[in-house]
C-alpha cells in the first residue's frame, strides 16, 4: 500500500438511484405524517447513505451525525427564524414608518449575523461528523472572524451594486475552505476575485449573446474554477484538485436531470442526485502526493447542530 506511487486519486460514488429512492420516499412519508418533525432524521439518513456510498482508495466515507442531534439544532433554528420573522412582520404591520424602518434594519442586521452563524455552525457540525478510515474532518474557523468577512463582503457588494460579488465569494471560500482540516491535511483555497469576476463577466456576456445556450458552459466553468483552486497540504507537500467537467457533459447532466424530475413529478429526484454525484466526482482528480495511509487524527469531539438547520431554512448551500 504505497500511495506515493500513484499520485492521481479519485473519489467515486457507488450509490444507486433505487436505493436512494427507498430512503427518500420513506423520509417523505414520515416527514408528512409527522408534519415535518421527522425532517432532521430524514436528512441524517440521506447524508449517511450518500457518505457511505462515497469511496476513496477502497474505503468509504462516514457521516456520524444523527437525527437527534440535528433535531436539537432544528428546534433552535426554528426558534431563531421565527423570532426574526415575527419581529420583521410585526414592524411591517405597525403602520408606523419609523418602526417599519427599524424592523427592516433589524431584519438585515439579523440576516448579516444569521447567515454567517448558519454557515459556521453547519460547516463545523458537518465536518466534525465526517470521517474516512476513522479520521475526522474538522472546521477550525472562528465565528467572529467569519462575521467580519461576511459583513465586510456584504456591505461592499451592496455598495458596489453587486460588482464586488465575486471578490466576496472568494473571500468567503478562502476563509471557509482555508479552515478545513482532514486529520493532518490542511485545506486551502487559492482562487482570486479578479479571475472569478472576469469569468463571470465572460459567462454573462456569452450567455446573453447565445440566448442562454452558453449558460451550461458558464456553470461548468464556475464548478471547475471552484474545484481547481482547492489545495491540500500534507507534511509540506502540496496536493491539487482538478475538475475536468466539460460543458457538453454538464449540459447532458442538467438536461436529463430536469427531464427526470419533471416527468416523475419530483419522485425521480434521487436518480438525478445520483447522476449528479457520479458525474461530478468522476471528473475530479486529486493530483499530488497525498499519503492516505498516514493521516493523523487531529480533531476533538464536537456537539452542536444548530447551524446545519438554519442553513437549510435559509436555503444556503455550503460547499
Amino acid at each position, binding site marked *: 500500500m504505497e500511495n506515493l506511487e500513484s499520485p492521481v486519486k479519485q473519489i467515486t460514488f457507488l450509490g444507486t438511484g433505487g436505493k436512494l429512492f427507498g430512503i427518500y420516499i420513506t423520509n417523505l412519508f414520515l416527514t*408528512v405524517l409527522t408534519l415535518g418533525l421527522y425532517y432532521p432524521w430524514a436528512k441524517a439518513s440521506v447524508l449517511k447513505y450518500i457518505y457511505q456510498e462515497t469511496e476513496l482508495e477502497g474505503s468509504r466515507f462516514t457521516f456520524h451525525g444523527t437525527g437527534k442531534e440535528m433535531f436539537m439544532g432544528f428546534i433552535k433554528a426554528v426558534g431563531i427564524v421565527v423570532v426574526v420573522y415575527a419581529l420583521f412582520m410585526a414592524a411591517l404591520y405597525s403602520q408606523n414608518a419609523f418602526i417599519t424602518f427599524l424592523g427592516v434594519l433589524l431584519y438585515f442586521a439579523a440576516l448579516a449575523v444569521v447567515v454567517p452563524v448558519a454557515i459556521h455552525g453547519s460547516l463545523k457540525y458537518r465536518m466534525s461528523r465526517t470521517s474516512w478510515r476513522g479520521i*475526522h474532518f474538522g472546521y477550525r474557523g472562528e465565528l467572529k472572524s467569519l462575521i467580519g468577512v461576511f459583513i465586510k463582503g456584504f456591505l461592499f457588494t451592496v455598495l458596489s451594486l453587486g460588482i464586488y460579488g465575486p471578490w466576496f465569494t472568494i473571500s468567503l471560500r478562502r476563509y471557509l475552505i482555508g479552515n478545513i482540516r482532514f486529520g493532518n491535511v490542511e485545506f486551502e483555497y487559492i482562487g482570486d476575485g479578479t479571475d472569478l469576476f472576469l469569468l463571470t463577466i465572460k459567462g454573462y456576456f456569452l450567455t446573453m449573446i447565445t440566448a442562454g445556450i452558453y449558460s451550461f458552459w458558464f456553470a461548468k466553468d464556475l464548478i471547475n474554477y471552484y474545484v481547481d483552486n482547492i489545495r491540500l497540504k500534507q507534511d509540506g507537500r502540496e496536493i491539487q484538485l482538478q475538475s475536468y467537467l466539460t460543458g457538453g457533459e454538464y449540459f447532458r447532466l442538467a438536461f436529463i436531470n*430536469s427531464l427526470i*424530475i419533471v416527468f416523475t413529478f419530483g419522485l425521480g429526484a434521487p436518480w438525478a442526485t445520483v447522476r449528479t454525484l457520479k458525474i461530478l466526482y468522476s471528473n475530479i482528480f486529486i493530483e499530488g502526493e497525498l499519503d492516505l*495511509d*498516514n493521516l*493523523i*487524527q487531529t480533531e476533538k469531539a464536537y456537539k452542536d447542530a444548530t447551524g446545519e438547520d438554519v442553513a437549510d431554512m435559509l436555503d444556503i448551500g455550503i460547499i
Partner: protein
Amino acid sequence: MKQFSVLYYDGNTSLSRRAVVTLSPATLEIEWQDENSLTHRQSWEVDKIHKIEIIENLHIVRYGDFPLQTIECSEKGFSEALKQVYPNAVFLRISPLTQVSGLKAVAVALALVAFLIGAYFFVLPPVAEFIAGRIPQKMEVELGNSLYSRFVEDEVKDDKLTLLLNKFAREIDFNTTYPIKITVVKSAEVNAFALPGGNIVVYDGILKKINTAEELAALLSHETAHVAYKHSLKSISRSLSGYVFISLILNDLNGFTTVLIDNANSLNNLSYSRTLESDADIRALETLKKNHLSQYGLVGLFEILSKEGGDNEYLKFLSTHPLTSERMAYAKAQALRQKHFSSNSKLNAIWKEIQVVCKKAN
C-alpha cells in the same frame, strides 16, 4: 470460536491494518501484527459497540468514544455469525426504516401519494375553513379594509351612487353583525363582489342593467351573504393552504410543475366557489323573505347575468358566479312558493333616485 479477517483502524491514524477478529461471548477480540511483527490486541465490550453499518457485503463496526476504532469486514457470514453469538446485542438492531427498497419502496410511494391526495381533498379544506371561521370579526374587518383600500386606489368611485346605495342598504335587515359598507365603482363590467368584513363593491355597469328595487335588494342580499358566511376569508384560506401544502411537499420542483399544480389548485377552488354561490343564494332568498320583498328580485338578477354571460368580456363573472341557469331555476321555485311580500315604498323611492343618477351618467 468464530474468526474473521478484517481491516482495523485505530482512530489515531488512517493506516489499514489486517487483523483477525474473534467473536468471544462478551467481547470482540481484535488481533493484529505491526511492521515489527509485534502482536497487538484490542478487546471490544459488546455494549460499547456502535450500530453496525452494512453495505452489501461490507460490514463496518465502530467502537468506543471519540476517536472511534473501526473494523471493516467483507467476509461472507459475518453478520450471521454476529447474530448467532450476540443474539440480543443492541448494535445489531437495524431500524426497518433504513431497509426500504424495491417493491416496498413503491408501496410506500403509493401510500404516500394516496395519503397526500386524501389530505389535500378531505382534510385540508375543512381545517382551512375551521381556521378561517375562528378568525375574530375585528381582524377580518381590518383585513377587508386593507384589501379594500388597495382595490379602490386603482378605481374611480361614484360618490353619489355610493351614498344612495348605502341609504338603500340601511332599509334592509341583512341579519348580520358585520358593518356593511357599499362602494360603487365606475366600470362597464356587470359585476359586484364582497370583501371580508363587510365591504361590498358594486360596478355601476350592473346598476344600469338592474330593473327593480327587488333585484338590487337581491344583489345586495347575495353579497351580504358572502360577507356573513365569511366566504372570501374561507376561499382565501382554502386556496392559500392548498398552495402552501403543495409547495411544501414539492419544494424541490421546478417552475414548470409548480405552474401545472398551481392551476390544478385553482380549478379545485373553482368548484368550491360554486357551492359558496348556492349558499349565498339561499341566504339572499331568506333575507328577501324576511324583509317582505319579492324573491323574484333574485330571478330577475339571474336573467341579467345570463344575458351578460354570453359576452366574452364578462366571462370573469361566470368564473365566480357559475351555472346561472341552475341557480335561476332554484330561485324561481322558491319565489313561486313565497306568499307574503309587498312593494317597499322607501326602497322604491331610493331606487328611483338611483335610476335618475344612472341615467344622467349615460
